[in-house]
């Protein structure tokens, strides 16, 4: 998989990058400022997908160095995923409209 890179796939990669960049821009451009922090955290969670690449690298490791670096990569990536999810979820769980009028008190400081 890693060596199947030709000039054509590079051009396709540039297309993917361009379309993805526009997508990210459009999705975020109308966000109210109250959601800036949760959204930063949410996008932080999404780039945690790097753990998938790290897993592939670790599965294909043949040397001890490769295994160590792969292990570190998977650990860091998994942390990115889980931490990003938990923090975002906690922040977003607090947004609720006034009709419900806070039935229970969550997370006392």
């Amino acid at each position, binding site marked *: 998989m890693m060596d199947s890179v030709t000039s054509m796939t590079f051009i396709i990669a540039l297309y993917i990058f361009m379309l993805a960049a526009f997508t990210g821009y459009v999705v975020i451009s109308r966000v109210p400022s109250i959601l800036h922090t949760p959204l930063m955290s949410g996008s932080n969670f999404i780039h945690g997908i*790097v753990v998938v690449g790290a*897993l592939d*690298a670790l599965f294909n490791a043949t040397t001890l160095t490769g295994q160590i670096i792969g292990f570190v990569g998977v650990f860091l990536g998994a942390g990115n995923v889980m931490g990003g999810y938990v*923090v975002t979820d906690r922040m977003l769980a607090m947004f609720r409209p006034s009709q419900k009028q806070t039935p229970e008190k969550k997370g006392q400081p």
Partner: protein
Amino acid sequence: MLIEYIVGLSGLIAAGLFIYGLKAMSSPVTAVSGIVTAGYGMVFVVGATFLNLFNISPDARPHLLVNVALAVVALLLGCLWTGWRGRTVQMTAMPQMVAIFNGMGGGSAASLAAVSLLSDHATSGLHLSVTIVGALIGCISFTGSIIAWAKLDGRMRKPVRFGGQRIFNAALFLIALVLGALTVMQYATPQGVLPGILFFAAALLFGVCMTLPIGGADMPVVISLYNAFTGLAVGLEGYVMGNPALMIAGMVVGSAGTLLTALMAKAMNRSLTNVLFSNFGDTASSAKGPEGEMKSADPSDAATSMRYASSVIIVPGYGLAVAQAQQKLYEFVKMLVADGVDVKFAIHPVAGRMPGHMNVLLAEAGVPYDMICDMDDINDSFATTDVALIIGANDVVNPEALTDKSSPIYGMPILNAYKARQVFVIKRGSGTGYSGVQNPLFFQKNCTMVFGDAQAVLSKMVEAVKALGTA
């Protein structure tokens, strides 16, 4: 063959769910469903990746068991540690948690790059260059985020600055680039190992040195920038790995993060170059402010006038969060609302530590989000409001930002609290705000100070209103 299709399609589905989730997260009504959707995408794609075990390279087959065991242990360790930290940390400490988790993603992208540099598959120079660029960005994001975490967490209070720092940093960056180029040129030869190791060291060091001189107040913008960096690094390493899901997710975050960074910098009236290369807060402390008398009042007096006002706008600042007084504040607000007072919260874009952080803190205390207003929506209402109650905020209500061109905060958008008929300010002492600028609002005729810790003052206010109710 079949496995390749399944794994490839699962990546596609995950990327779609991520974009859908991100879109849902941009409205408060659907935000919760958004992160859950993205979460399903992640579980799905990570699960499908394990199918790749049937498809690994022949060289790696003897190591299969060890590798799988290592992967499972690493996954568990990463998830358990951050899951526990994320669940138990105080809401006020959220920004630094975002920083540390983001740094981990950057580090993961950098180690991906290291792995693909180590494997001596024949690859093109272009391919290697992309790997190196991704590694550089990932490393900067990794160590930079750790420094940002240390600063926000109060472990590193003063920005570290020295003469010629910018030249030093520029030189370090150039060295990293040269080492990166050497690594590409001497790839898969024994001479290529040393430049490779030095390249990673230089890139990691540059992340530290780049972040050290930046002041604590600018950290939110910096974290957002590093978030975009990590996204970019993940996207580039996705290309190296031939994994389109990483490319899409990484690049979406890269561009969304860049836009978020720009929005935040704009809200703070700071350009990005200013944040990264200037020394805000160093020279400002010498600025001379207006002199005069501040009036001060008892908490109960202030509470009484708010109880008999018809409208109150509350301006919360970081001081409120530090005093952990959001719950008490909402208790007070509920009593006012029950007595028929029209209460609104006015949030400055940079109240708290990050844009939107104050909204999160208020939401945690149970304040419904439709009582909370953005600066642009509420600024015209101050003139027709009876009482503005400012709690632990200073610079964001300083009218000098509108009028005094010599002021270091000139040009920053502020909340027009000074226009209200009566202004109460709950504040610990008569000192200046973060920028070190004295606030002429506090000397205005319609302004009364209530000195004390926000938690204690608000408790007294609640009691005062209670006493009025029973009388």
